[in-house]
């Protein structure tokens, strides 16, 4: 046999092989249906009742925003607590790598667990012929809670394109805070109207852990949230926001604690049922003292004989209320034995304590502020101020009657600025444990005044001792993947991603 014929034979065999392979491929092409069926995940649902997602959205919005772990920035910047040694760089006004971990956690949980869920519920209720405006309004109101917190912390953040990865928007643009605010207040008014016009049966009966599907409460919440945002923006754009404030004041607001935007908890050892702050109590039971109350807070409560002291602060083993200064340098930290310093009070950490993302006291104080500065309504700011104190104390199961009749702080005194300081300081106390809002309010109002740090025992950090005005963007994935959009935002905010850059609304000195 010649070489040529050999090669021919080989070729023939190969061709034959390919033909056989090809015919098998025709046979198996018929298997596609079988393949598709096999590749359907039996462990999970391809469709889900949207009310399941809604209940999760409510829980995530509350617990991911004001659970204990989300408060390391707020609690320390608000000078209300000192967190564990691993988070001490926050308290020392540093912006190191380490800081990014908590910031990343907050940033990602807002987008992954809140905004994405809201978008999904909106999509499920926007199908043609089956549009449910009420459900859309409820979900988007909750999304705004997260967006507001994000923008108040970071400044410009993804807003219009956020949480839309499913629709191929993988690199959301960062929107200007001013634009975000303008949209949020507009949306909230639209939602308030929707809540007023809708039939509650179209909402989430039995699946609304916050207001139990009470549309009156939803309307009050939307309006109160709008008031909060407008008050926050009023120094940056008084022309626009003073009008909005006046508008909000003409409509129902959260008047008492029964209307709070709040999540109920239960006396239980089960994590999902108890107040997330109860985890701290578990730490203390293990003789681990890694979270203590700030000296600034304890001293204020002591100096003013405030009856909330025992709810917010637990005496140490010697029966004394002792706070720890914020911002100690490492060497000075050694002078403090954490186990000798007070920790948050038992009531605040109680397993069944509800968590408020918005409470009546804040709204009364905002109303007092509005009245004080003639932004709408013509009531007496002092009355609103006292209502605020009353509601705040009521939240800690304290009857304010005695306090309001005896305390020198029971009435607004002095000039408008002094009165404003009094109102803002009361808000600072009333926000606890939503420390992040307390810090934001210090930035907005300047009260209580957190002085520049000059004591050598205190860290000046990267801000020369001044209270930080924002958080740097999360360190890892968002920065590396969506860096171009993030950089655009950084450029808008002055070219550097720093913690002492004020956000848009932070204009009051």
């Amino acid at each position: 046999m010649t070489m040529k014929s050999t090669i021919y034979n080989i070729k023939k065999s190969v061709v034959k092989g390919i033909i056989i392979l090809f015919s098998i491929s025709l046979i198996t092409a018929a298997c596609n249906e079988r393949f598709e069926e096999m590749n359907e995940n039996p462990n999970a649902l391809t469709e889900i009742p949207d009310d399941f997602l809604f209940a999760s959205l409510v829980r995530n919005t509350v617990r991911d925003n004001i659970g204990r772990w989300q408060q390391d920035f707020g609690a320390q910047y608000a000078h209300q607590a000192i967190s564990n040694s691993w988070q001490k760089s926050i308290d020392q006004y540093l912006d190191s790598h380490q800081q990014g971990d908590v910031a990343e956690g907050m940033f990602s949980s807002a987008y992954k667990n809140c905004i994405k869920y809201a978008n999904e519920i909106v999509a499920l209720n926007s199908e043609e012929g089956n549009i449910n405006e009420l459900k859309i309004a409820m979900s988007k109101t909750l999304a705004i809670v997260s967006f507001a917190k994000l923008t108040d912390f970071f400044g410009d953040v993804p807003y219009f394109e956020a949480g839309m990865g499913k629709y191929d928007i993988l690199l959301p643009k960062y929107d200007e805070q001013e634009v975000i605010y303008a949209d949020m207040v507009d949306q909230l008014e639209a939602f308030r109207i929707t809540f007023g016009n809708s039939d509650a049966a179209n909402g989430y009966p039995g699946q609304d852990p916050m207001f139990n599907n009470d549309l009156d409460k939803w309307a009050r919440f939307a309006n109160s949230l709008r008031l909060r945002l407008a008050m926050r923006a009023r120094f940056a754009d008084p022309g626009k926001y003073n009008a909005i404030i006046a508008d909000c004041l003409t409509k129902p607001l959260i008047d008492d604690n029964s209307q709070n935007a709040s999540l109920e908890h239960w006396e239980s050892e089960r994590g999902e049922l108890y107040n997330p702050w109860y985890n701290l109590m578990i730490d203390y039971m293990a003789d681990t003292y890694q979270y203590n109350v700030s000296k600034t807070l304890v001293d204020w409560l002591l100096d003013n004989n405030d009856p909330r002291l025992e709810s917010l602060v637990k005496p140490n083993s010697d029966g004394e209320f002792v706070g720890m200064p914020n911002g100690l340098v490492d060497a000075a930290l050694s002078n403090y034995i954490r186990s000798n310093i007070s920790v948050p009070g038992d009531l605040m950490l109680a397993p069944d304590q509800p968590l408020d993302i918005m409470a009546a006291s804040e709204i009364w104080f905002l109303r007092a502020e509005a009245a004080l500065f003639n932004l709408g309504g013509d009531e007496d700011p002092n009355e609103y101020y006292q209502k605020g104190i009353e509601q705040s104390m009521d939240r800690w199961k304290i009857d304010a009657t005695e306090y309001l009749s005896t305390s020198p702080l029971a009435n607004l005194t002095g000039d408008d600025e002094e009165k404003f300081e009094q109102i803002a300081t009361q808000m600072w106390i009333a926000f606890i444990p939503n420390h992040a809002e307390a810090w934001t309010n210090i930035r907005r109002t300047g009260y209580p005044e957190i002085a520049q740090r000059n004591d050598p025992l205190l860290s000046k950090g990267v801000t020369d001792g001044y209270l930080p005005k924002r958080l740097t963007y999360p360190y890892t994935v968002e920065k590396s993947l969506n860096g171009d959009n993030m950089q655009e935002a950084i450029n808008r905010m002055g070219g550097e991603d720093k913690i002492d850059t004020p956000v848009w609304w932070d204009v009051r000195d």
Partner: protein
Amino acid sequence: MGLRTKLILMKLKLILFVGCLFFASQLFSQDENLSLEINNQPLVDVFKTIQDQSGYRFFYSDDLVDLNKQINLSVNNQSIQTIVNELENQTDLTFRLMEDKLIVVVPAGEEQQSAIITGKVSSANEPQGLPGVNVVIKGTTKGVITDFGGNYSIVVPDKYVILQFSFIGFETMDIPVNGQEIVNAVLTENIESIDEVVVTALAIERNKESLGYSISQVGSEEIATAKESNVMNSLAGKVAGLQINTTPSGVDGSTRVVLRGISSLSGNNRPLIVVDGIPVAGGTFGTVGTSGGDSKDMGDALSDINPEDVESMSVLKGAGASAAYGSRGANGVILITTKKGSKRKGIGVSVSSNFTVDQPYLFPDLQNEYGQGAFGEYPPDIQAIKGTEPYIWSWGPKMEGQTVTNYLGEEEPFVPQPNPFEEFYELGTSAQNTIAFEGGDSNTNFRTSITDQHSKGIIENNKLSKQTLNLRGFTKLGEVLEVDGKVTYVHHNAENRPDLAEGVTAAGWSFNNMPRNISLADLENNTVDSEGKELWSWDRTAGNPYWGLENKHNEDTRDRLQTLLSVKVNILENLSFLARSGFDFMNRTATEYAASGSKNHANFKGYYRNGSENNIEWNTDALLTYKTQLSEEVKIDFNIGGNHRYNQGKGIYQSGENWRVPNYYTMSNLEDFGTWEGFSEKEVWSALGLGQISWKNYLYFDFTLRNDWSSTLPTKDNQNSYFYHSENLSFLFTEFLNIKSSVLTSGKLRGSYAKVGNDTGAYNLNDYYGVGQSQLPYSTGGMSNTLANSNLMPENTFSWEVGANLGFWSNRLEVDFTWYDAYTINQIMKVKTAVSSGWSDRWINSGELSNKGFELQISGTPIAKADGFQWDVTLNMSKNISEVVSLYADNYQQVDNVVLKTSVMDWAIVEARVGGEFGEIYGIDYARDENGNILVDPAGFGMKGEYKKLGSINPDFIGGLSNNFSYKNFNLSFLIDFQVGGEYYSHSSLYRDLFGTGVSSLEGREEWYSTHQGFGHFLPIPGVFPDGYIQEGVNVETGQPNDIPIQPIFRHVETMVNRGIVTDYIVDATNVRMREVILGYTIPKRWLDNTFIARANLSLVGRNLFFLYLATDKIDPEGGFNAGSIGSAFELNTMPGTRSFGFNLNLSF
């Protein structure tokens, strides 16, 4: 009679010989009489007839004997002597009856000159005699075969011929007779020729010469003597290009196996494991992370392969070798062939006993000068003593025997305690016994074995019990049908696998950070306080290991059934059909509980977890094989067939917490619990063709064609169908050029190219929702954070390799060299997304990883003396160069770095960056001036510099050197393996410095405390020049060498915690290790003559004995955090490294 026919006859004789002995020796006695009726038949047929009936063998030279001589013979019940006498009458031949039923036939009259030579043939390993050896008079075709005792006798024309002894697997030996009558021969084994037949893809046995790709085969002796419970560990250092790392993680820990580098960014990089042609599960169980939690190494599926049952392991490297296995072969294939019974006399029984002791020996160096506290002070009060940072660190005062109050509130002297690692860990033991039965004849053989293993870890309650039952049989039903079957059952039970990493009861982690004055006795005697709460457990660090021993328990079982049934039909002489089906079924259960009372275990509530899962992989294939000789020169083997693979996994998992009644560990005793279920299945259909074309005896061309259809990829546009192929060429140039050099014995060049496709896991194409399992008064639902991709495509690996194999001086020296280059594109990977999109990950196709490198193996026999002394040496070395060519880029994002793993606190981060290697270790370095000096700030601390590459997990090269000395009954071998280059992040060292337990944390302490005063030693003593730790570097302001002393505790807090500088803890993994030493002794047969034992061999074995070189002291560089692709990147030193000693006794009856 041509040479070929002669050889065939010789083979036939061997078969007859063996066959005859097997039966005949039992059936016939020497005096057996015969009846014959022969009419005009050629003499040669008469011989055959007699041979068949009686077992007498005729030995003759066909040059001298006329075999066609017609014979008539009619005898009835006559003795053999009578018969040969009759034959002598009819021919002019002389028949001489020898012992062993041998009849020598010579022409009459010539017998006077001829002589009979007798002797015995043996080898180093078979000193009692080698059966079946060909003994031929050189230059003629006359020959005999040795009997079972290795004895032979041969008639030679004169006493001055040369006898040639040859046997498969041994060097052919020529011995001049030189007038003697007894000629004994000791043959030496020829390693190369043993390897000649290798098992390749689809269990096809092939001549190694003809392969176009690199393959390494390791035989049973090497695997079973120095037994490791995980059979993969036996390959460490023996196969070029194969990297094996064993994490110290308790008995039955898993093994990191990487062949020729990491090819997939996010997928599985372990080679496919195929046992007897059937792929088996080879993954790891339980993933150990880098941080806390209860992470355990639950072993890997490979450890279920019983080393005793392994006949050989072939490592097919590179895609060319493994394309026939489909997608999963892209990372290489390890083919395991288990023992079949062999043809033998009667039933063979062998017993093997193995006992080893594991000794922990790599303990970190701990300082013995300073005890609990901070700033040189003992903690001020009991709360601080019990658990307040930084007072739970070892930065307190000097331990000088002064009285202090300890955490129990008791007064005790303040003195250093012995190294707790040395105190706590104890000797581990492992006993393994196997009994195997085998037997067979020319048509049927079988083997069955039972192995029982009991091991105890270096922590007292960590145990393993494993039983393996194996049954294998083969039979030939007539000429047409061959049936091969196997059943293997493994029962595996492990108890109390230790917590690893920063696990809350990970003992090593506690000891790493525990103040140096805390005594283990105190910990052991006081695990709980008066309220029943765990004592000496502190936040962020660890708990009391003794609390764990008393209050935690975990247990897992694996029941595994592996089967194989293969039927081969020999349709025509050159056409056969093989159908094979086999499954690997595994049931796993795992339970774990912790009593209540520990903060670290469900907040004092305690927990229970219980799960079980079933997994099956079922492979069925059919293969039609056609072999033909197209011409004198061209031979073709062609196989065509198909494969069906089905994988299914289902599991149920329960978990709960909060015990109602103490010490009663059942699910119903829990306040809260929930149940989860999981199910997953996939299938792949394949059509394949493979073939070999050979040209003469020197050119071989192999090809593989394969198309897969996978259920996990989109069906639209046939995206779930992918084709791949490989081509391999082998060229034996010494045959081609007809080189007959005494120096260059054999030479081969080979080349291979392959493309291999790959699919993904089930259910990555669609988005899903979950329902919250809760006790809330409303229902919750969840969305995945991973975005599915309905457009996934198969990924592809392309590879080529070239190599050469050269043999010198009759293959006394052999050199094997391979250069390979492989790259993987369109990788299916889960990548991070910008989280503001709402999702944290998504599935995409992208990225290109390249691996190229070389493998070199040099083996030789420097000494082989006639007296039996032999020295064999093998050196293998390989270097892999990995490169991330591209990561991912699509409409949305172009990414040039991917974080593969981060350590706790993000100190060290393993990344893949475009242009870099896969698995580079990044971290924050000190700020440096242009000369590389560390810049020191005015406070005296090293300044924070760039986040940059500080190391790489990839070694520069790895290899092994094995030596084997044999002399008479003794055999000594040792294996040294080495890794040069590569780094890892030593998390434990960083913590020892941070917490002040490590020796290097002593730097500057004495100096600082002796020059500073006040509480916390913050103030300089007036008039004393302040001293302390002085960071080496340059003062950033003055440019002068730094001379500012700092209090040492702050050095670490500031540089590591606050600034995140990790440079000092990225350490060199270079090491040279005495991996294995074996001293074997085969008991001389004469000692066993009066016993029922046929053969006895005793070996003393040591493994991982010591380091000849270790760049970083006291840490096992293999001690990575897990067995994943990048598991070697971080070391947490949770378990100390161990070495083992033992003996291995093999007896056959």
